[in-house]
């Protein structure tokens, strides 16, 4: 079977600083892919290039059998990709002037032209799934970080995308709020949502992912099922990284 989303040979430089040096990525339907790696390794840039928040210098993206040049993508192609993917930001980026429900429905009503009633129904269901139905009329400033990120996730999957991209969804949260967001993500994963997750949450990677990629220096150093990567890493760089990270995660209950 063809991969649902495939990116090939992504290159991206900011000025003279090369961030991505030829990254390939295959995503099948139902995959939960976790991308690990030290900061500056290009994980976030890769996600942002997939959604065209950054314009890659080179590379192709195929989504549902449509192949797009990542450097020369036209407006229509970008719209197509954004319709089939969703993005969850590290700092949530909820619309400050919209309530939780409006945040979820804005893209449905304005972007996708769904009737308001239908959008509201989808929105309420999405909020119920992340446990925030009773907060639908709250503005982002009235919600905690964890709640805001859950609204962010509701906004992402309400659009019924083929794949959701998570960019360090728990990194901006207080430690005690991380759990509620991870719980929602686990729930989505169990329901078969296709996800690409950049995270430092090793326990999430170990228990939920079906594929783990380790990135460093703009390339994918190693990839495999979680057990392979965590228990028997082959590459020295992966071992070094895990040694630094894993003892830490033992302190986090």
């Amino acid at each position, binding site marked *: 079977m063809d991969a649902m989303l495939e990116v090939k040979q992504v290159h991206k430089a900011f000025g003279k600083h090369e961030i991505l040096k030829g990254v390939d990525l295959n995503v099948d339907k139902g995959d939960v892919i976790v991308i690990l790696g030290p900061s500056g390794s290009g994980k976030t840039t890769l996600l942002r290039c997939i*959604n065209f*928040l950054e314009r890659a210098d080179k590379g192709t993206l195929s989504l549902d059998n449509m192949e797009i040049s990542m450097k020369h993508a036209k407006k229509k192609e970008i*719209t197509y990709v*954004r*319709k089939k993917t*969703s*993005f969850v*930001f590290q*700092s949530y*980026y*909820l*619309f*400050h*002037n*919209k309530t939780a429900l409006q945040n979820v429905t*804005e*893209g449905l009503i*304005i*972007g*996708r032209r769904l009737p308001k009633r239908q959008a509201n129904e989808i929105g309420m269901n999405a909020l119920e799934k992340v446990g925030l139905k009773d907060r639908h009329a709250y*503005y982002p*400033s*009235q919600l905690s970080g964890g709640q805001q990120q859950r609204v962010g996730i509701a*906004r992402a999957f309400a*659009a019924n995308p083929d794949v959701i991209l998570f960019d360090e969804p728990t990194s901006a949260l207080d430690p005690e709020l991380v759990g509620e967001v991870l719980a929602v993500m686990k729930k989505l994963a169990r329901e078969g949502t296709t996800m690409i997750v950049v995270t430092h949450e090793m326990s999430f990677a170990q228990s939920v992912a079906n594929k783990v990629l380790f990135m460093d220096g703009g390339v994918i150093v190693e990839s495999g099922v979680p057990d392979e990567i965590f228990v028997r890493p082959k590459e020295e760089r992966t071992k070094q990284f895990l040694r630094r990270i894993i003892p830490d995660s033992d302190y986090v209950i």
Partner: protein
Amino acid sequence: MSLDYEFMKNTFFLCLKGVPVALNITAVTLLISVPLGFVIAIIRSNKKHPYLSKLLGIYISYNRGTPMIVQIYIIYNLMPYLIFYFCKRLNIDFDVYGMSNMVYAYITFSLCFTAFLAEAFRSGLGTVHKGQYEAAAVVGLSDYQCYRRIIIPQAITALLPILCTNVTGLIKMTSLAFSMAIFDITAIAKVEASADLCFIEAYLDITVIYVVLCLLVELIFKLIEYRVKAHRAVI
């Protein structure tokens, strides 16, 4: 020294006749400058049009860097020649010298005020985090929809006080219209004062008029601010 109260009273009511003129110039200038200023601010605050941004930057620097009165002199003296020249070239039968002075006032004040507003709006747009643009793009909003529904509503909270200052500034700026032979508040006061040699009385009169006008503008903006914030939680 004693003030001529009788003169003061009469002149006050005479000067009030200049208020519609001042408000007329203010209103037309706002109608032209607000949309134009927004467009310029948006062009200058994103990086999509580097050359146009530079060009607009020069335009803004010119308006910020020259006294209003100099701009008035330049346009008031240059514009008739330009219009006359173009009309002749294009064979349009148009009586340049019959054109109302108000038209010159609209042009001068709009040109200047658009530049001021463009900078005010740019600072307002700058208060909105770039993540808001990204989130809007990701959920499928077009650039126009993003500005219309997400960015401008958020920027407006930060922008209203600056806009208020600018509008009161514009009302006071209209006092320079007398140099284009327009009979506004200041011009009437000046004429009356020189006729009776009661300068202090006349200028005290128009001080009151300008203060009251600007207080009214402040009040209007307070009400707008209240309304904008009433249906939105504090950010």
